[in-house]
């Protein structure tokens, strides 16, 4: 096979991986601070995807322009979900939290089914079929835009946590729950804010993914699983780990599909997960906990 095929496939894998990474970033942020595993993560992403589809179909609004508004909607939804519901489960056993979020996931899937039906839906933007050609290299325009937007959103999130007062307070909650309470931080509100930010991330990722893939209500569980694979590979709770994990999984799937059998590409992604769990259980850039 000519070399340019490998390069084309690798670029496509990296760009898709960046969007995967942004989606997983939300999961990692939520777990890193709130210590709740969001089993409704992929389902929340499908809500964002359907919002983008409705806005495009009814008002002709481009999903890339709708990235910020949809992220805000998901932020608000995530904020109140944490504040009103999940916060009540924070001190309960983990299986209670698990059941709560699985129940939320099931409700989301079924409500979407009732509203939108089971058929796949998509947006057809003016650039849906565009690609850029540089010599023998062909880059999918939608993936390029989505990958670029993922980098921008990830940088903004990292900057928020590092350089703002609220970001610092959230990190304090993540480091020491009791200590944060002792110094007077409103932990419940900060948790809600964090869950909102995680939801906003997944909302942004969903809005970008909708220009790459079609959406069905049943899409959610597959992406929840994918997000888990990515964050565990990169390091649960680590933002850079989530992005790195996303790129690694995207690239692995693409190259495995090219070099071996495309139908077996998910197997290689899970293979990496197994290797990480065996030899570096804290994830590639995760910190080992006592």
């Amino acid at each position, binding site marked *: 096979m000519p070399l340019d*095929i490998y390069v084309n*496939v690798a670029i*496509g*894998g990296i760009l898709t991986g960046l969007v995967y990474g942004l989606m997983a970033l939300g999961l990692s942020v939520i777990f890193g601070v709130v210590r709740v595993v969001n089993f409704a993560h992929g389902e929340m992403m499908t809500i964002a995807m359907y919002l983008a589809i409705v806005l495009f179909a009814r008002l002709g609004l481009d999903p890339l322009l709708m990235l910020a508004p949809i992220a805000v909607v998901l932020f608000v939804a995530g904020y109140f979900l944490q504040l009103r519901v999940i916060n009540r489960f924070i001190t309960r056993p983990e299986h209670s939290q698990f059941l709560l979020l699985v129940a939320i996931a099931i409700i989301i899937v079924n409500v979407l089914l009732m509203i939108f039906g089971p058929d*796949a839906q998509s947006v057809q933007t003016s650039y849906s*079929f565009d690609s850029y050609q540089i010599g023998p290299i062909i880059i999918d325009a939608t993936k390029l835009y989505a990958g670029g937007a993922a980098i921008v959103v990830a940088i903004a999130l990292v900057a928020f946590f590092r350089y703002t007062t609220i970001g610092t307070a959230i990190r304090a909650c993540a480091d020491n729950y009791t200590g944060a309470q002792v110094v007077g931080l409103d932990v419940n509100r900060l948790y809600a804010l964090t869950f909102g930010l995680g939801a906003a991330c997944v909302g942004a990722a969903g809005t970008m993914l909708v220009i790459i893939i079609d959406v069905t209500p049943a899409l959610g569980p*597959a992406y929840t699983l994918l997000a888990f694979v990515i964050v565990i590979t990169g390091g649960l709770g680590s933002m850079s780990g989530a992005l790195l994990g996303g790129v690694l999984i995207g690239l692995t799937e*693409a190259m495995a599909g090219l070099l071996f*059998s*495309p139908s077996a590409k998910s197997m290689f992604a899970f293979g990496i997960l197994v290797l990480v769990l065996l030899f570096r259980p804290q994830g590639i850039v995760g910190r080992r906990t006592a």
Partner: protein
Amino acid sequence: MSKKTHSAASLVTRRTVTAGLGAGFLAGTAPFSIGRAAGAPLKVGVLLPRSGYQAGIGQDCQRGVDVAKAVLKQMGMPDLQIMNGDTETKVDVARTTAEKLIADGAQLLVGAFDSGQSTAIAQVAEQKGVPFVINIAAAPPITEQGYKFVFRNFPTGPMILRDAFLNQKEVFSVAGVAPKTAVMLHCNDTYGTAILKGTEAMFPKFDMPYKIVEKIAYDPAARDLSVEVSKAKATGADILYAVSRLNDAILLTREMIKQRWSPQAVLSIGPGWYEDQYLKTLGKNANGPISFVPWYDPNKKATKLLKDALAKAHKGIGLNTNHVYTFEALLVAADAYKRAGSADPKALADAIRKTNITDNVSPGPGIMFNEKGQNDKLKCSAIQNRDGDTVTLAPKEAANAKPVWPMKRG
């Protein structure tokens, strides 16, 4: 006189009155009974996957049921009373729903789109002695069991493949082309794997002009098929031989355009590339692919009736396999009821066995069943997408257009 009178009076006992009333009742009800069979609608239980993951297809088949009443009336057929049953896309539910419909009075069953569900219904129909006319199901074993009450007016898997190769040759001949190489992209589900195996077994027998240079399997639930298309493109094959479902057909088309790959043709066996949603989603980019499918003969009179009725009942929905074969299953039922003059299951089954409907919709000489209950005279078609619709390229007796080769999207 008095003796006579006495004698006559003595003959009219309670016993004779009862017997006379009984005879009168029988005499009165016998013709009434026959009259009811001929006049009352035949109760047909229509089993479809109306919910579950095949719900979309089941609902599409239902459109064939919706328009059947009006079309059958135009064709001079007796009325049918439809009893709807939902298989929920589950084999066990298909079985219990068939039993329930029979218990509720269904005199004939129709269904069920899927081979697994149809197999389960066939077992119930045979056990209860109620005729079952399969609308869509391609697994050969269903009509290989020696069943007496099971009939199928749909091609089996081997028939679909046989016609696909014959129709390809006809298309090549009309277009005056002889492609040398093909790359096969197939989904790796039960259907895709069955077609792959069938192709491997039957391909050498048909002396096709091209060789299959690579076979690439993919997951039909995959959200990104860019790698698969890159791999297929790298083979430099003249044609893409595709075995897909709907969503993956759309994904593959998008990727082909993005990766600027234009083989001479896309030859598809099975669903996806010609479906309404494919045509609507991709617009002018849907033009070109040729699909080899059980279809309809656009030149037949009954096709026009069905098309008109569908356009009236479901605006914007194009006539397709699901409508045609579900309608024809009901046509078989109505025709048998008309000839049998009775709703007796055995009489209906005997009448179906002698079916000879030439005024039908599907390609081929008509609807007739062999000793196994299979319509082996059915023919599949080659259809090409053109401007949001399809045209039929082969077989020649059912063709209404010539192939555009190489394919042009815009």
